């Protein structure tokens, strides 16, 4: 075994990750190589120092399962917005829009309005005694006849 191979193997040897054959070969090499012995000694010192470096854990770690359970329950209670629920929601909304679109009839009044007869009527001062509904009813019944009845209150001219 060469020194380069031995040095590569030393870390694994310390970590107990060598085969029996590798271990025997390494130990044979180390017996006759001072340089590799020194390398082993230095690496072992690092290895042992790392092992000794412990950390203290916080005292409130015991509450983690409870905190987690609370958080997970809260998440479960929240409505879930997955891709599939988004797609089904979108489909439903589209269906409703299509339904509204085809059931909607644009407003067409059967009754004539003031706006619909601008070329016929010219109002001077509005409606003194009756409202729009009356006027519309009059237009349906016959404009000429109706205006003759209320001649005094109205003025009109044909354009």
């Amino acid at each position, binding site marked *: 075994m060469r020194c380069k191979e031995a040095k590569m193997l030393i870390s694994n040897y310390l970590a107990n990750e060598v085969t029996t054959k590798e271990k025997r070969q390494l130990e044979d090499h180390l017996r006759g190589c001072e340089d590799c012995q020194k390398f082993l000694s230095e690496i072992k010192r690092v290895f042992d120092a*790392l092992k000794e470096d412990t950390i203290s854990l916080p005292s409130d770690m015991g509450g983690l*399962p409870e905190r987690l359970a609370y958080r997970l329950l809260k998440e479960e209670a929240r409505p879930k917005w997955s891709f599939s629920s988004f797609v089904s929601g979108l489909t439903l909304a589209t269906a409703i829009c299509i339904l509204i679109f085809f059931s909607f009839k644009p407003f067409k009044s059967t009754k004539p309005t003031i706006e619909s007869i601008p070329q016929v009527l010219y109002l001077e001062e509005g409606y003194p005694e009756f409202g729009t509904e009356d006027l519309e009813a009059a237009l349906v019944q016959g404009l000429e006849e109706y205006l003759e009845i209320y001649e005094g209150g109205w003025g009109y001219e044909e354009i």
Partner: protein
Amino acid sequence: MDEDLRIISRFRSGDIEAFSELVRKYQNGVYSFILRMVGSEADAQDLTQQVFIRAFKGLKGFRGKGLFRTWLFRIATNVYRSHSKNSPLFSNSGLDNVRQECFEEKVILKEQRQVLRRLISQLPYKQRLTLILKIYHELTFSEIAQVLDCSIGTVKANFHFALNRIREEWPRDEMQGSKDAHK
């Protein structure tokens, strides 16, 4: 059957308490692993929670091909990685500062430990992970390979380079002092 698999089987049958058992069993391991990686107790606690939340959500899909512990450390590694990408604290200088602040209150640090921790924090990501998982969590190289999704050969090399790098960077007087102390 493995004890963890029995607990997982109970969880799959609807026993939520079984999951709490897993948390109690592995919380210290996950927390200390993340703490060694991030150096901040507050971050470590938050990330430990995230690890278990991910584990909870993914446990139904856990097939039991590998060990639960390995699977959990893999989640922890992913959580750490996504956190370190988003956190500006994880530049090298920031990590050193956080690490010192965090541990100062908890233990009286020897100079040697400070040096070691600084050297560990300066290791490349995979070497650092390999070292921590091997030394402090005693995972086998095969398990570490599963966690890191790489070959056992890569793990062996990473472990060797990590130890050797610390050996090289460790101040000579420190090394000499340790030698004297051991005599």
